């Protein structure tokens, strides 16, 4: 495989953003028929490398060769036409269009007169999604589906293109194990067809499972190119973050007894979204939610936060029923919710890191009581350091941060509220291994201090590592509540989720 000539080579690529050198003389090559992982911490420059390659940004220095010929794309359209198909990091689809259209827009099958053949579009869209094991109504608007489904649709769009090079920038950040396996199957098939695949992910297991070779970036510089099988995981992490990472273990202490209920959902439900469920979260307890894509985890979180209106049941806080009709009401009871969809439900792109970070705290205080500047500075610098947010410039616009760093800012927004119940929906989406451990440690620490946490993650290991108790959802129904003792493993949890096994 090493012998074959690269389909793509990038040499000496540099890219300067105002105040940040995002790429500094990076070399990169991609061979046909390989899955090549691009590794690095949040803000290392992975997405930027992909964007300069596909012409979203101009490069300052360096050259790009595709099939031996120098290229400089004017934009994604040109790159696509040259055979590079890309899924960018954030889901970049048009949620106002139907699922089928999102897959085919720009290259819809047409008849002789240039008229789009809608039937054909729908039929083929359903076919492609079936390859990813997704059976949804392709005529529905994309906005009706969760982020995970949107991510799959974006992937479907990319893999359908007849391409030489397929680029996937964190395609699996919202997917659970089943979908990831399905994606990998498709990737392997494409690889066998001789397509070169560039893959970015912060899940090391996935990297080791699928990739043949990896290139590591650190702070916009090239660390090196390695064969995956020759680089042990510890070394990879060390190369990425420049230091060794402590072993991860279960973070919660040994079985505690929680007897002070904080939030109780009683027969709470929302027609069409989640069947009525009853769930109690105690002070200092971390409750994990596990379930498959679309099983209703996000719905539970939104109901508890008052983001959606419940159609049945009630919520009691400290024993008294409270109507949580708006997020504001929930916040007044010190409930916080970090949404899974950072782009549409989290970021205010035109505001700075500082403003985004203090937003919720400021909203809770009301605009007439501004947060003193000194307090802002203190909070911001504390969390920038704690979560390793880079660049560490609080006055940078948040839209200019890398995806992972944006996520950290949003997390910090809720952590500084010091809520009594913190609802985290996929909080570690797109966050690198180092920061992820840091976040998990922080959550454990806060819960140790009495804060209740509702933790949602597609990564079961993470759920297990943190939670005291795991609630399992299937088909929008709460089916089990399991204590997280030594007998609970990812396998047994998986079984419960799939509906096979029974709680131990």
């Amino acid at each position, binding site marked *: 495989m090493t012998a074959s000539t690269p389909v793509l080579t990038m040499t000496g690529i540099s890219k300067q953003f105002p105040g940040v050198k995002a790429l500094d003389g990076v070399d990169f090559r991609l061979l046909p028929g390989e899955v090549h992982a691009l590794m690095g911490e949040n803000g290392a420059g992975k997405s930027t490398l992909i964007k300069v390659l596909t012409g979203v940004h101009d490069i300052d220095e360096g050259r790009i060769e595709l099939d031996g010929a120098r290229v400089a794309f004017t*934009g994604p359209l040109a790159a696509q036409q040259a055979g590079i198909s890309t899924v960018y990091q954030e889901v*970049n*689809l*048009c*949620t106002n*269009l139907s699922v089928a259209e*999102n897959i085919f827009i*720009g290259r*819809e099958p047409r008849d002789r007169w240039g008229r789009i053949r809608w039937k054909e579009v729908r039929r083929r869209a359903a076919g492609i999604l079936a390859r990813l094991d997704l059976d949804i109504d392709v005529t529905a608007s994309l906005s009706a589906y969760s982020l995970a489904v949107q991510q799959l649709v974006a992937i479907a769009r990319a893999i359908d293109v007849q391409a030489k090079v397929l680029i996937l920038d964190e395609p699996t950040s919202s997917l659970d194990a089943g979908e990831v396996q399905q994606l990998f199957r498709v990737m392997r098939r494409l690889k066998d067809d001789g397509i070169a695949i560039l893959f970015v992910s912060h899940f090391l297991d996935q990297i080791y499972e699928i990739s043949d070779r990896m290139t590591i970036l650190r702070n916009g510089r090239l660390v090196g190119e390695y064969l995956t099988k020759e680089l042990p995981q510890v070394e990879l992490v060390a190369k990425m973050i420049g230091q060794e990472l402590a072993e991860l273990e279960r973070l919660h202490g040994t079985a505690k007894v929680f007897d002070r209920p904080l939030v109780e959902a009683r027969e709470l439900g929302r027609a069409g979204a989640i069947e009525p469920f009853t769930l109690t979260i105690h002070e200092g307890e971390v409750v994990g939610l596990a379930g498959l894509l679309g099983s209703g985890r996000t719905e539970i979180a939104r109901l508890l936060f008052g983001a959606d209106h419940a159609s049945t049941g009630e919520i009691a806080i400290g024993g008294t029923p409270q109507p949580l009709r708006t997020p504001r009401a929930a916040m007044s009871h010190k409930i916080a919710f970090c949404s899974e969809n950072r782009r549409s439900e989290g970021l205010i792109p035109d505001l700075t890191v500082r403003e985004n970070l203090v937003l919720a705290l400021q909203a809770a205080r009301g605009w007439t009581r501004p947060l003193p500047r000194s307090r802002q500075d203190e909070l911001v610098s504390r969390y920038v350091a704690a979560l390793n947010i880079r660049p560490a410039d609080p006055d940078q616009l948040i839209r200019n941060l890398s995806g992972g760093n944006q996520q950290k800012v949003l997390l910090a927004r809720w952590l500084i509220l010091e809520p009594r119940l913190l609802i985290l929906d996929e909080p570690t989406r797109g966050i690198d291994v180092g920061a992820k451990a840091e976040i998990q440690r922080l959550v454990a620490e806060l819960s140790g201090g009495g804060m209740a946490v509702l933790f949602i993650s597609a990564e079961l290991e993470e759920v297990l590592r943190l939670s005291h108790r795991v609630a399992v959802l299937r088909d929008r129904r709460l089916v089990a509540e399991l204590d997280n003792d030594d007998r609970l493993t990812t396998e047994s949890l998986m079984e419960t989720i799939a509906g096979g096994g029974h709680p131990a």
Partner: protein
Amino acid sequence: MLVTAGLFAAMFVAGGVRYEGFATGQIVLNVFIDNGFLLVVAVGLTFVILTGGIDLSVGAVVALSTMVSASLLQAGWPWWAVIALVLAMGVVLGGGMGAIIHFFGIQPFIVTLAGMFLARGLCYTIGTDSIPITDPAFTAFAQTRIDLFADLWISPSVLIAVAVVLVAAYVLHYTRFGRAVYATGGSEQSALLMGLPVARTKITVYTVSGLCSALGGVLLAFYMLSGYGLHAVGMELDAIAAVVIGGTLLTGGSGYLLGTVLGVLVLGLIQTVISFEGTLSSWWTKIFIGALLLVFILLQRLMSRRGA
């Protein structure tokens, strides 16, 4: 959309109950006859608004078209050459604005506002008086009545407007350009990253709007048989209102052409109601228009919310 159509029908029936001679087929046709040019302009504007942009220059371009037509016809040009030139002028103006908007990243509001100043200014440099149109072809076109069944009739402008609507609806729903319009409006950044020709789409929609405005101007010239710099003052607001009443979001990405047609009809019907009401004083006319608009929008909003 259904709600809008239903409300339109309800309004028509209510008018029929209230005013004698209201609920006739010809009243609906008259709404078309009297608003053919507005319809064409609104169709063009729908493209722009669907991409999330706005075009304030439409009214001025309409006026300029009537002015150019009238003055060229007066100078003895043949009618077909005049029409061709006017349409070309619309394309150039629209395309120019689109190019500035796209390449220099200036907000559409300002660029098209400057375009509005420019077009009106050009009108006045041609002349401040109104110029009558006496060209036989234009006159014939203006006075032709196409008889339908049972005493009903329409003007040729209505046919042109309907044709424009049909073509535009086809383009929006069955061509790649049309779909790119929706995608660009949904999220310009996503559309770009999905590899859609955003630049071309954006420039084209303004070109389409310019073309439609010019065509609307020609229809207005038929309707009025005159060219005048003060024609169609404030028409951009009418057109925007029609598009938005039709359910298109000003932020782009959502809406249908049929909605725009309904929007124009609603505005026209309000006008008709006003004229049937008969004796409203000038200010009550305005208040009444506002109130009808309010009632319509409120019902539309509440009913579609209930439905959702």
